């Protein structure tokens, strides 16, 4: 069936509309005839949409690029986008729908670790390949799962040793109260102690907490040398606002594993965010020709005023491209064949630098950069090439134990 790009876009738009109104199964089957279905489950609304929106745009962009290059194996890709509305229940529901109804060849899903652990068992059960493209706390060991984001062994370790040299050895950790925040806090504590420091305070906040007044006073009482933030979502952005309102900006520095992931550096004023240090796989400001060409193409598609291509967005783009390369090398979209070809250690030159799949952990070897927030930009101040997922590698070996399907976590 010959299909030019315009006709394909039209049919996929129709099928997406049909899906979103939950109508007429036959309609979606019409587009699914020849196209390869890919599903994405991301929060495009609600408190986590600050992360979700750039991710969905990046996935859309990746699929459009693949399709304009002729699709995969001569078939167009059909990206089915589900908006999980920052609601865990919808992750379970849409994951089933993606696996059983859409028969998706791959599902890209999940922002928070909580949502990942909802989706992962569902996709394991229905034998549907799962890509999780975010930075997270590490430790997931599952042959059906590929994690293209960075983990604490790649970022936290680097940033901790950087800031303990720069600012001092006492840290106060504020973190989101769910698995990500808890586990990442344990890593921060461990690395700070390894560097000869200590944590003088740890506090966890549910995602809807907006009042940090008492905490800001407590931080001052504990007199740390710096604050580590693993705060997540729109509500927690109040922390940085109230930090500035209390006049703490510039007095006590902040390092973060999550800042800028949701465009906090764009949404907040520069007085509220200047000087915060982060460590990521990707910042839009990377000066490589590969990245500059990417940013130009992306801006052409979404407008030059696009707020920022976040690390999470780049992660999604990388995840899609790695999967596509796996399909090309396997010559099929069949799950096991794709997993096996990815396990050969597929490696691509992408805007963030070289990204290779680590066969033993299904995580990635990639570059990381320490950057400082300055006037709504992320200025790279130190780079580390080709970092492996050392934390996950210490506990996970899928070459030896291919039947493993769990998340290991650091002992507290």
């Amino acid at each position, binding site marked *: 069936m010959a299909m030019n790009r315009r006709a394909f876009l039209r049919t996929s738009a129709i099928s997406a509309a049909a899906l979103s109104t939950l109508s007429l199964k036959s309609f979606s089957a019409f587009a699914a005839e020849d196209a390869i279905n890919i599903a994405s489950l991301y929060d495009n*609304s*609600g*408190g986590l*949409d*600050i992360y979700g929106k750039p991710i969905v745009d990046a996935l859309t962009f990746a699929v459009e690029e693949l399709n304009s290059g002729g699709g995969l194996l001569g078939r167009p890709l059909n990206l089915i986008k589900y908006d999980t*509305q920052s609601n865990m229940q919808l992750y379970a529901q849409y994951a089933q729908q993606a696996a059983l109804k859409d028969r998706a060849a791959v599902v890209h899903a999940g922002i928070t670790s909580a949502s990942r652990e909802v989706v992962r068992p569902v996709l394991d059960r229905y034998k549907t390949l799962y890509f999780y493209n975010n930075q997270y706390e590490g430790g997931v060991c599952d042959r059906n799962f590929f994690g293209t984001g960075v983990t604490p062994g790649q970022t936290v370790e680097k940033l901790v040793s950087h800031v303990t040299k720069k600012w001092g050895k006492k840290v106060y950790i504020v973190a989101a*109260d769910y698995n990500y925040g808890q586990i990442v806090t344990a890593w921060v504590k461990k690395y700070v102690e390894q560097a000869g420091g200590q944590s003088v305070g740890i*506090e*966890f*906040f*549910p995602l*809807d*907490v*907006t*009042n940090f*007044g*008492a*905490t*800001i*006073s*407590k931080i*001052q*009482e504990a007199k740390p040398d710096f604050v580590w933030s693993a705060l997540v979502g*729109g*509500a927690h*952005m*109040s922390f940085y*606002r*109230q930090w*500035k*309102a*209390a*006049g*703490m900006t510039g*007095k006590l520095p902040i390092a973060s594993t999550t800042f800028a992931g949701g465009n906090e550096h764009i*949404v*907040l*004023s520069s*007085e*509220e965010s200047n000087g915060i240090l982060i460590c990521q796989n990707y910042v839009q400001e990377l000066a490589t020709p590969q990245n500059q060409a990417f940013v130009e193409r992306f801006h052409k598609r979404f407008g030059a005023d696009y707020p920022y291509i976040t690390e999470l967005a780049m992660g999604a783009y990388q995840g899609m491209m790695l999967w596509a390369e796996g399909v090309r090398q396997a010559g099929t979209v069949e799950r096991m064949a794709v997993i096996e070809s990815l396990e050969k250690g597929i490696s691509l030159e992408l805007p963030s630098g070289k990204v290779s799949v680590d066969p033993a952990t299904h995580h990635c070897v990639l570059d990381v950069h320490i950057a400082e927030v300055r006037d709504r930009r992320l200025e790279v101040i130190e780079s580390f090439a080709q970092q492996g997922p050392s934390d996950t590698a210490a506990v996970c070996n899928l070459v030896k134990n291919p039947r493993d399907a769990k998340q290991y976590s650091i002992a507290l």
Partner: protein
Amino acid sequence: MDWAAIFSLQIVSAIATLVLLSIGLAVVFGMMKIINLAHGEFMMLGGYVAVLATHNLHVPIWISILVLAPLSVGLFGMLVERLLVRHLYGRMVDTMLATWGLSLALTGTATMLFGNTTVGISSPLPGISIGAYQTSGYGLFVIAVAVVVLLGMWALLRFTHFGLCARATMQNAKMAAALGANPGRIYSLTSGLGAALAGLGGAVLAPLTGVIPTLGASYIAKAFITVIGGGSAVITGTLTAASGFGLISQVVTFFSTPVFGEVALLLAAIVLIRVLPQGITGRFFRRAF
């Protein structure tokens, strides 16, 4: 010493926050016996007015918070009273259903218009230092607004003709009408006043919390707890209940986490309602406003 000052300031600002959350609801519930389940959404609207006027229309932030937000939400409240609540006086369950429906509609409309995304404005005041500690100057502003609101409400009820007529209408509407007051007008103005105070509260808190269409849901429970805990006297009730709950939740927050602070607040409310089913002013300060 500095530490004690900071600690006390946090407690007073928690109390002020509760006052601002609940005073609008207390006016409508205490004076008209209307349970306004859309109160949280009135606050959310106030927050949006403040944020949008400041960002998009470039109105000075103080004017958008202190004038535009209460004014527009107050007018909206009068409109709601005229179109919706007026037809349901004396039917408590029906008003609850109607205002609940309104709250859902407002959340949905705000989501469609503004998107389900947190927007915010930066706090316009610099930090202040007390000894070795830094705290938010905006916290003092919140306290000041709460004090002015309470004093203003007291003066309004105590010294003005409207206050007298309002109190008379609340006690016995038919008798007040026979003596020449116009209950329809009083109800309309009281609704407007309650809504305006809700709008003001939402706007004043917006720089601290940010605004999202579902914001009302996070306010409404605390507002109701404070109003029910306070009992029927609008000002004294709100102040005593807010003081008790604010103190308890903030002390617990300081010594553990905000989560346990909330838990302590709810536990305190349960105990209070069990011991004093009519609220604090049902038992004490019975002659107060």
